[in-house]
């Protein structure tokens, strides 16, 4: 615990309004990423993982329809809650960069790759456009792009999804950030392309010592890439700990169910274990454990919300279940 923290979230709550009322997307969430650490954030759709990652760089559409409260929201030592617009701009891109899920729409269709990259480089460090070009070229080759000159002159629609994601990664690494927030960066890609990008990210992290918050729903990718993991369900962290341990011997019934329902674990053409029912739809759910309606172990005490408590046998691990350690 000697390393300084890259991300420090305490008690984050984000609520959205729609026609039917307020909906809690993230509920008193706490999360830490230390400098140089690769941390996974796992959850199914609607679990609040993308909202959490967007709130770090203050990219939520805050206003009448979206409210955010937190006890602490620090990114690389900057208090994001009170930061000025200028401080945020210096943080974004330069020290903390973000990569998104959809490489197909994350780039402006009317701007060439060269101008995209120059925009980022020039926004954070005044330099000649010749230098920016040389740097862009180098960054692209580091991302495994063989003909960076051609790619730089392309427009986004001329590149495949995998290529675009490489470009976005190159942009993310362009100012030597200390933190990268990757929001489902692989989901829209083919399996074989995913494989290559994972290898690339792993190499780059080892080289640069950047901290990564890797948001995903893919258990196997997170297990192979991350040191620690947070598992989210219905806006809350239900379990956390070293990735390998949590994703092989989960403590929380939800994580257990999630792992058990993967077809890979079963003999072909047999029934899978499933989590019954479906996640709460978000309109402010009842008090207590959000998972209790789907949980095989639910009992009376579950009507009170269980805190995230450290595991007795392993202080690195914690889960939000009254039966922690017992199941």
């Amino acid at each position: 615990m000697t390393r300084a923290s890259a991300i420090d979230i305490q008690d984050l709550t984000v609520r959205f309004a729609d026609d039917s009322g307020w909906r809690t997307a993230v509920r008193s969430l706490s999360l830490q990423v230390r400098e140089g650490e690769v941390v996974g954030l796992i959850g199914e759709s609607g679990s609040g993982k993308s909202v959490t990652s967007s709130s770090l760089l203050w990219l939520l559409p805050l206003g009448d329809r979206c409210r955010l409260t937190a006890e602490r929201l620090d990114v690389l030592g900057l208090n994001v809650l009170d930061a000025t617009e200028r401080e945020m701009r210096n943080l974004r891109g330069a020290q903390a960069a973000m990569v998104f899920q959809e490489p197909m729409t994350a780039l402006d269709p009317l701007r060439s790759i060269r101008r995209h990259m120059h925009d980022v480089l020039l926004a954070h460090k005044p330099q000649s456009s010749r230098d920016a070009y040389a740097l862009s070229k180098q960054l692209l080759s580091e991302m495994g792009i063989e003909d960076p000159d051609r790619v730089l002159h392309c427009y986004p629609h001329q590149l495949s999804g995998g290529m675009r994601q490489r470009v976005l990664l190159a942009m993310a690494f362009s100012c030597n950030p200390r933190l990268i927030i990757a929001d489902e960066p692989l989901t829209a890609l083919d399996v074989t392309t995913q494989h290559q990008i994972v290898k690339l990210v792993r190499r780059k992290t080892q080289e640069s010592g950047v901290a990564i918050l890797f948001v995903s729903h893919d258990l196997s990718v997170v297990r192979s890439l991350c040191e620690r993991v947070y598992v989210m369900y219905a806006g809350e962290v239900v379990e956390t700990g070293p990735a390998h341990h949590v994703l092989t011997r989960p403590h929380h019934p939800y994580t257990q169910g999630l792992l058990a329902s993967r077809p890979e674990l079963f003999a072909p053409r047999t029934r899978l274990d499933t989590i019954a029912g479906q996640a709460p739809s978000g309109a402010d759910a009842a008090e207590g454990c959000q998972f209790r309606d789907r949980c095989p172990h639910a009992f009376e005490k579950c009507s009170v919300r269980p805190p995230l408590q450290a595991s007795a046998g392993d202080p690195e691990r914690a889960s939000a279940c009254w039966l922690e350690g017992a199941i």
Partner: protein
Amino acid sequence: MMQGSAKRRLMLVVGGALIGFWIVIALFAPLVAPCQPNDIDLDAYLAAPSAAHLLGTDEVGRDILSRVIFGARASLLTAFGVVAIGLVVGGVLGAFAGLIGGWVDLLAMRFVDLMLSMPSLVLALALTAALGPGIENAMLALGILSVPFYLRFVRSQTLLVREMEYVKWSEQAGASLWFRLRRHVAPNIAGPVVIIATLHCGAALLAGAALSFIGLGAQPPLAEWGALVSAGRHYILDQWWYSLFPGVAILSVSVGLNLLGDGLRDLLDPQGDAS
């Protein structure tokens, strides 16, 4: 949020109320109007608004309020007529072209491309002039020239829905063209078509009034809003009320139709607040 849906409802209510108000006025004009629209009273020409004539009188002493009230009939009928001609002819041809495809579609689209590459209001001007001035001819000209617009819109909507997976499912399950049109395509394009027709109705009202204003539409002594504004233009510096009130009538119906159209669009597509 609540605010959004309340605003949407407000637009619908205001728009609907304006249109409803004028339709009622047009239907019951003889009951509502204080005078006959063509009653001449040469002693009270160009009178200012007063208790006897709420909106004043024109150059031969006709009651302007009554003429505005009766004018609703001609003005609204023209606008509705234009939309009806365009919608029925263009809509049927468009749905047909979209579903049949092939060379029928190709031919129809070349024709539409040609027609839409011309300035249709200018053509309407020439066509009305050729047909001879008159409110029916103005309506006919505007209606005919809006056919390609509806044809293209209904066709594109039909093509869009045709490609949806539920229509594909129906097709592989053995549903006939007619079945798919009736069960799947029609219910799903009805909304957008109604919205477009509502908005176009506002444009048609303005175009019809403009033709009447320049003298190609309604002929005297027929009361029509555009013609009323036109008759009052010579007195605008002294008897401003003459032209003002029929203009306000046009404006209110047109605003009503636009609000109604926008409100319906928001209702159909609450996310896309792009109007």
